[in-house]
C-alpha cells in the first residue's frame, strides 16, 4: 500500500469563541476509501467536512489532506475537493447548463465536460430551464454534477441521498459512489445504511471522537448509541 493516505488528522481542533466545535479529532483515511461520519446534530460533522474542504481553517492539531498540510497549503488542495452539502450551490435563476458552465470556468474545466455530465445524469432535456423550476430530485442531480465537475480525488458528501429518487440514485452512483474510485467522506444519519457503505466509521459527539473503527468491526448498536 504505497499510496499516501488521502486524509490524516491528528488532534485537530477548531474553536468557536470559548467553545471547541472540534476537539482532538484524529483519523486516517486511506486513498480511495470511504469514511462515514455519524453523530447527532451539533456534533461537529459539518465543521469537520468544511475543514476538510478548506472552507474552515483548523485551529490546532495537524491536518493533512491529499498530502498537503492545512491551512498552510490550502491552495494546493482547493480545486481537488468536491463538496455536496445541503445548499445546492446553484443560482436559482440560471439554468443547469449556465450554472455548470460557470463552475467550469471557475475551475478551468472545458465546457464539453459539462455536456458530458448532463448526459450522464440524463438532464439534457431540462438543461436550459431555470434551476428553480426543477424538482428536488433533478436539482440534486445538477448539484452532483457540480460537485464532480472538476474531477476531484476527494469527495465530501453531506447526506447525499437525501433528495434522490431511485432512478437518479442509479445514475449518480458511478459519479459519487464507491465505483468512482474517489476517496469519500460521507455524513450520515442512517446507522445501518451508513455502515454498509463505509470502509471506516467515525462517530462524533460534542466535537470529540466517540467512535472510530473499520466498518466491518462495528456493530450497528454502537452507532445508534451515539444518538442516544
Amino acid at each position, binding site marked *: 500500500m504505497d499510496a499516501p493516505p488521502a486524509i490524516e488528522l*491528528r*488532534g485537530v481542533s477548531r474553536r*468557536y469563541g470559548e467553545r471547541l466545535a472540534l476537539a482532538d479529532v484524529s483519523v486516517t483515511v486511506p486513498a480511495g476509501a470511504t469514511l462515514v461520519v455519524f453523530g447527532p446534530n451539533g456534533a461537529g460533522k459539518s465543521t469537520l467536512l468544511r475543514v476538510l474542504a478548506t472552507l474552515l481553517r483548523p485551529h*490546532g492539531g495537524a491536518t493533512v489532506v491529499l498530502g498537503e498540510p*492545512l491551512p*498552510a497549503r490550502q491552495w494546493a488542495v482547493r480545486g481537488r475537493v468536491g463538496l455536496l452539502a445541503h445548499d445546492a450551490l446553484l443560482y436559482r435563476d440560471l439554468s443547469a447548463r449556465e450554472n455548470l458552465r460557470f463552475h467550469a470556468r471557475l475551475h478551468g474545466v472545458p465546457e464539453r465536460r459539462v455536456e458530458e455530465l448532463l448526459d450522464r445524469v440524463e438532464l439534457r432535456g431540462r438543461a436550459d430551464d431555470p434551476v428553480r423550476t426543477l424538482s428536488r430530485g433533478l436539482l440534486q442531480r445538477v448539484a452532483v454534477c457540480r460537485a464532480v465537475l472538476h474531477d476531484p480525488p476527494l469527495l465530501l458528501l453531506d447526506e447525499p441521498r437525501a433528495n434522490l429518487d431511485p432512478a437518479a440514485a442509479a445514475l449518480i452512483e458511478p459519479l459519487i459512489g464507491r465505483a468512482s474510485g474517489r476517496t469519500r467522506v460521507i455524513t450520515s444519519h442512517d446507522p445501518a445504511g451508513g455502515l454498509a457503505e463505509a470502509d471506516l466509521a467515525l462517530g462524533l459527539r460534542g466535537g470529540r471522537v466517540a467512535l472510530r473503527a473499520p466498518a466491518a468491526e462495528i456493530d450497528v448498536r454502537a452507532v445508534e448509541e451515539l444518538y442516544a
Partner: protein
Amino acid sequence: MHAKGLRALTLATLAALTVTLALVVFYAPNDADQGFIQKLFYLHVPIAIVTLVAYVVAGVLAYKHLRTDERRWDVRSYVVIHIALIFNILGLVTGAIWAKASWGHWWVWDEPTLVSFLIVFLLYATYQPLRFAIEDPERQARYASVFAIMAGAFVPLNFIAVRMASSLVHPRTFATAEGGLPGEMMLVFLVSLAAMTLLFWLLVKYEIAHKHATWQLRALRRRLLGDDAVAPLGRSAAPAIVPEAVGRRADAPAPAPSISPSDAPGAAR
C-alpha cells in the same frame, strides 16, 4: 502582568494634567477677543489630535491582527477605538462650546477639524454595532480589523477633503497675525498635547488590564468550579480573551503535541 507600570503611568498622567491645568489657567495669555473661554482651545485641539491619531493607530493594530492572527492585536485595536470614541465625543462637546463662545453658534461648518471630527465620529460609531452583528468571534475580530484599517485610512483622507472644501472665512486655529502660535501659547499647547496623550494611553492600559483580569478570573472559575459555574457568553461586541496561559480549561484533555498551523511544513501563506 498587564498592570505593570500602570502606577507610574497614572502618576505621570495626573502630574501632566495638573501642570496643564495650571498653565492654561495661570500662564497662557488671555485672548483679547474671546476672553477666558478661548482657553478651551488648549483642551479641544489636543483632544482632537489625539483622537485622530488614535484612530490611525487602531488601523495599524488591526493590520497587525490580520497579519499575525493573534487575538491580542484585536483586543488592542478594539480598546483604542473604544477610548478614542469617548475622546471623540469629548472633542465634539468642547468644540461646540468653543464654537459658541468664539463665533456665537453651537456648530460651525467652516471649522474643518470640527467637521471632519463629526464625520469620523459617525463612522466609528458603527464599529461596535458592526461587531455586535457578527456572532462568530473569529469572524467578528477579522471583520472588525478590516473595518479599522479602512477607517484608519479614511481619517487623513477625510481631513484633507473637508479642509479643502471649507471656506476659509474663519481664522484657522494656528494662524495669528504673524502666522503662527506665539511662544507661550505653543508651550501650553504642547504640554496639553502631552497630557492628553498620556491620559489616552493610561485609559487604554486600564481597559486592557481590566479585560485581562476579567477573563482570567472567568477561566479560573471554569477550571476550578467547572463549566456550570460560569454563565455562558452571550452575544458581545467585545473581543473575548481566552487566556491559554492560565492552564488547561476544565473541559480540555491533556493536549497532544499540538502542531499549530503556522508550523506546518510547507511554509507560511
